[in-house]
């Protein structure tokens, strides 16, 4: 602490202007620097001289009389015996009550100071908690805003996917409808007529044929194996036996491979066929005939 600071404190003390912190500082400085007390005393005495600068005023004479009466009453009641007898050990009543009052005030001051500091600490803690809560609230709000944006984006994506899926379903349903229509048009497998034709030839008993007939499309496929090779002026001719006609319906002519005896014919009867009773294959002259003339080589059930 420098000299100027000492002078500051001493000057303020001389005018009773020290605040509590400065009072403590001044007390500590007095303990460390005994010479400071002299400075403080001189400045207090100087400050006291300012009283002479107040507008002069004469106290009424009655004031002195009143004072002396007070003193006389006090002295006669208690003070004089105490002062003359054992002033150092027994305090006069007014002094004692003053000390007691001061002690009470000191206790109250200490209590209220403690309460004040406790309340200040509590308020400070509350303020800190409120600041933290505000911070947390702002953080939560920011997080919610971010999550809302993400959710909106995800919702838009989901809506787009749903739209795409709906379009795909529509397409698939359309295709399914088309397929159903095709199936309806083509007929079901149960409606197909499949027949195996057995050989009637003594020299080729192993000859065989399979005929598949689709009544919806009035179309069929005939596959033959191990039929004897044909002469150049001959053809094999397929016949479809339908009870509604008196004679078998012409299914068309075909040839076979001379070496393997295999052949294949996609046939379209020249008349509408309602019910297939049998399939039959005959050996006819080349180009076929309207009504079977040659020998039967294969016949179905």
């Amino acid at each position, binding site marked *: 602490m420098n000299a100027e600071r000492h002078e500051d404190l001493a000057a303020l003390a001389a005018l009773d202007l020290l605040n509590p912190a400065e009072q403590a500082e001044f007390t500590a400085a007095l303990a460390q620097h005994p010479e400071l007390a002299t400075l403080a005393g*001189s400045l207090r005495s*100087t400050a006291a001289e300012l009283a002479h600068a107040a*507008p002069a005023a004469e106290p009424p004479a009655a004031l002195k009389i009143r004072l002396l009466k007070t003193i006389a009453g006090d002295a006669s009641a208690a003070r004089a015996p105490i002062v003359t007898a054992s002033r150092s050990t027994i305090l006069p009543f007014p002094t004692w009550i003053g000390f007691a009052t001061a002690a009470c005030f000191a206790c109250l001051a200490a209590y209220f100071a403690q309460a004040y500091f406790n309340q200040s600490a509590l308020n400070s803690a509350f303020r800190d908690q409120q600041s933290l809560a505000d911070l947390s609230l702002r953080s939560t709000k920011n997080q919610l805003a971010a999550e809302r944006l993400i959710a909106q984006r995800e919702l838009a994506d989901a809506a787009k996917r749903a739209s795409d899926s709906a379009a795909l379903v529509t397409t698939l349903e359309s295709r399914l409808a088309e397929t159903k229509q095709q199936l309806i048009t083509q007929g079901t497998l149960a409606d197909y007529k499949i027949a195996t034709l057995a050989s009637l030839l003594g020299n080729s008993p192993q000859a065989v044929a399979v005929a598949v007939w689709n009544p919806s499309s009035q179309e069929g496929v005939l596959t033959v194996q191990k039929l004897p090779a044909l002469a150049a002026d001959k053809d094999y001719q397929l016949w479809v036996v339908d009870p509604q006609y008196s004679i078998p319906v012409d299914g068309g002519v075909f040839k076979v491979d001379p070496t393997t005896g295999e052949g294949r014919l996609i046939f379209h009867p020249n008349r509408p066929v309602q019910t297939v009773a049998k399939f039959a294959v005959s050996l006819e002259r080349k180009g076929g005939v309207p009504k079977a003339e040659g020998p039967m080589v294969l016949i179905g059930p």
Partner: protein
Amino acid sequence: MPLLLSTHLSGYILWTNRVHGFEPARTIRRMKTEPTADLSDARHAADARLLGLVAAGDSAALGELYDRFSRPLYATALRILNDPGEAQDIVHDAFVAVWEKAASFETARGTAFSWVLTLTRNRAIDRLRSRRRRHELLETSALSDLGLDENSSGPGADSAASSSDQATTLRAAVAALPADQQRALKLAFFSGLTQEEIAARLETPLGTIKARIRRGLLKLRDQLANRL
């Protein structure tokens, strides 16, 4: 009378080395343990001796002390409270306190007059604050109304000053101070304001106010010493 004032002040204003230390030019001893014989200030010695008699229960000494101190004390209380009745109560109570506490006076803490003035001024300021009229007084009191202004038109100010050599010397010493230091000292002594309130009142930083009070008080001490 100037001689009285000079002797009254000479015991505490000799401060020889403010910059390099606090070694006073004179040793002031406690009244209880050492007599005032070493003090060259006859007035101070007389005051201190009277106070010692009061401490011993001498009511006549109290009456004499009253005659020596009552005018400036009453003027100060009246200046602070602006109420003659209350000022009388304050002076009465202050002297009762002197009667009861005279034994606690220590010369090292100032002159007898400064001790009694402190008792009076503190009571006046406490009364001022307790009656909750401070704001009202602040509004109505002007600096020129604080008794130290040479241009003051306060009732009886000039005539009162001329009636006292001590007051004349003091006024001259105060007038020699810079105006801003005068204003700070006036408010500090008479208004009962705190440092902060003085700073606010003068619209000046607190540190500046402290510096003005310090410099003003030190200069006043030197001024009074030079006028001895």
